[in-house]
């Protein structure tokens, strides 16, 4: 029930971002559970989009659709954003906790679900000439969500717009850095593993 109420609140939030995000944090209108449900919904939306978008607009090779990759391509960037955001804003006097960041960012993604689901239906009844509408709404959903993400960051950390802008750019760079370090870490791990494995093989063969 709480989740449902919270989800309904998100409909108010996307049209009134300043008040919405403020209440989300200070009036406890949102909760982590709902936030995670929203992220899951975004993931599901994108899978449905790939699978069910009308033939005319769908150039995805369905034979090679991998649901896990699809989900990861939503969930991983989302948490990467949250982690990078938290890392930076704690250093830059941000007022939001990690939980606040996750909740805010998740609620900002609601337009993606709200627009894309009807868009999937719409894509099945249009021709190539009417594809411009589809593209328009597709872009609208992304711009809307991006704007909400930006305003959400601003409200939750109590930043000025200029500072938020700077932070957002730094967060994107930070996401890149995290990916780089992660890759480095895994490649090192792999090398270490193969090193120990060769030692083991060497010993096993000699004994």
């Amino acid at each position, binding site marked *: 029930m709480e989740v449902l109420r919270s989800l309904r609140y998100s409909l108010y939030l996307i049209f009134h971002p300043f008040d919405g995000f403020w209440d989300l944090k200070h009036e406890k209108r949102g909760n982590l559970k709902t936030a995670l449900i929203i992220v899951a919904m975004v993931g599901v939306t994108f899978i449905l989009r790939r699978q069910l978008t009308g033939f005319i607009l769908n150039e995805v090779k369905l034979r090679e659709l991998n649901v896990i990759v699809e989900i990861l391509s939503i969930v991983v960037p989302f948490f990467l954003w949250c982690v990078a955001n938290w890392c930076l804003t704690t250093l830059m006097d941000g007022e939001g906790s990690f939980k606040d960041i996750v909740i805010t960012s998740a609620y900002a993604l609601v337009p993606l679900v709200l627009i894309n689901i009807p868009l999937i239906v719409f894509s099945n009844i249009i021709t190539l*000439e009417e594809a411009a509408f589809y593209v328009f709404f597709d872009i609208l959903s992304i711009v809307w969500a991006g704007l909400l993400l930006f305003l959400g960051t601003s409200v939750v950390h109590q930043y000025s717009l200029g500072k938020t802008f700077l932070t957002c750019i730094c967060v994107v760079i930070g996401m890149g850095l995290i990916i780089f370090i992660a890759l480095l870490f895994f490649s090192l791990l792999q090398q270490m593993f193969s090193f120990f494995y060769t030692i083991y093989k060497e010993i096993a063969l000699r004994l």
Partner: protein
Amino acid sequence: MRFKRFLAIFIIFVLLCPASAYADEPYNNYNYDFWGSPIPAPAAYVPARIVDGRSLGINEFKKPSDLFTGPDNKLYVADSGNNRIVVINENWELDRIIEGFSKNGTRDSFNNPKGLFVTKDGEIYVADTDNSRIVHLDADGNFVREIGPPVSEIIPADFQYYPTALVVDRANRLYVVAQGVNQGLIELDSQGMFVGYMGASKVRPNMIDYFWKLIATDEQRERLELFVPTEYNNVSIDNDGFIYVTTGSIALEDIEHAINTRSKDDRIAPVRKLNPTGTDVLRRNGYFPPVGDVYFRSRGYAEAGNSQLYDICIEDSGIYSVLDKKKGRIFTYDTDGNLLYLFGGIGNRLGNFRDPVALDVIDNNFVVLDFNMSQITVFEPTEYGRLVREAVELHLTGKYDESAAKWEQVLKFNANCELAYIGMGKALLRKDDFRQAMKYFRLGNKRDYYSKAFDLYRQEVIGENFGLVVLAILVLYIGSKILKRIRTRKREEIKAMGKVEA
């Protein structure tokens, strides 16, 4: 007992059955689907015979570099190493050899002739490469004239003229490909006078190169690669007078980019079709531009890299085929640029090449000249290849229903043939069977035609159910009105209750 007899009959029957069909062509048969994956396909052409010096009863060819189908299905071969032109008749027997000619009373001969062209009247033009001239002979091989190096103030004095390929149009103008010339084709008028260069490809330096050039020092700049147009390596002409040129010197990255973006651009194109003003008019409406192989490894493997197109031949119907020198493959495209089929490969068996340099078509058979093996391989169409050709040709002449019937037969050989689905879809669309047409366009991955069929189908459905649609809209409209009224009433009631409580 009965069973035994049955078994015996069964075994005899099995033994009598022909062995299952097995592709024994020494190359892979495939075609590319919408996504650019190579999908196995039946063989369209199979090697039929080898024609070489021995089979003709003359001494072996030596580094032959060009062949051309003349009138009466005679095949003219430029046997460069032996400085002669060999003419083969339609039964693959020797017709005659042109070893020299008498020029103003003196005997003259060729020196490494690398290209030749035969007009509809049988007149022979030979690119006499190392003699820096073009020799014009009449149909009987008698000397008519010679055309020397082009003279003009825009040609530098130290220009070394090595013509390697040429075509002659109906007005007897000559278009010559010469070694080291990247300004396009050399155009000569009917008198053999230089008119100008024609059809040079436009240059497009990419931004990164441009940036480096901007910051480089003068010395570095000199050592950088020049942004020059690509050099043509071969030329051919169709019945309408359009000139087709090929080039093999486009960078791997540019070809990959053209494939990945499904480019219709003529700037990075190994095949170009030039109109009389030298503008490219080739249709590139296939899923991929005509560049030969679409899927290949970039580097590090034996067969890595893009196709190196080296020759092109155009048939009367407008279907054209290109020869990939590197992988020894022949790719055939229709006038829209759809890849119909491909065959051939590098190797040592019948049907393989080591260094294929020239390609032409003679009476529906392909002839490919091998520079290294000094022989001509003749390929003849299989049932499948013939059906595909007929289907395309019928479509081009406007016989759509007959074409669809052929495509239907093609599908029996190859259920992965997207072109066949599209061809059948088009015929169904003309018959106003939109639903079936949609199905076929979907199988053929043809989105624009699917959209057309869908548009018409949608109109049909809405038209048939017009009453229902209107009814649905009315019901929705009235329903929403009623719902709204109920809501406001409820809200008012709650308000009233609140007031009462207060």
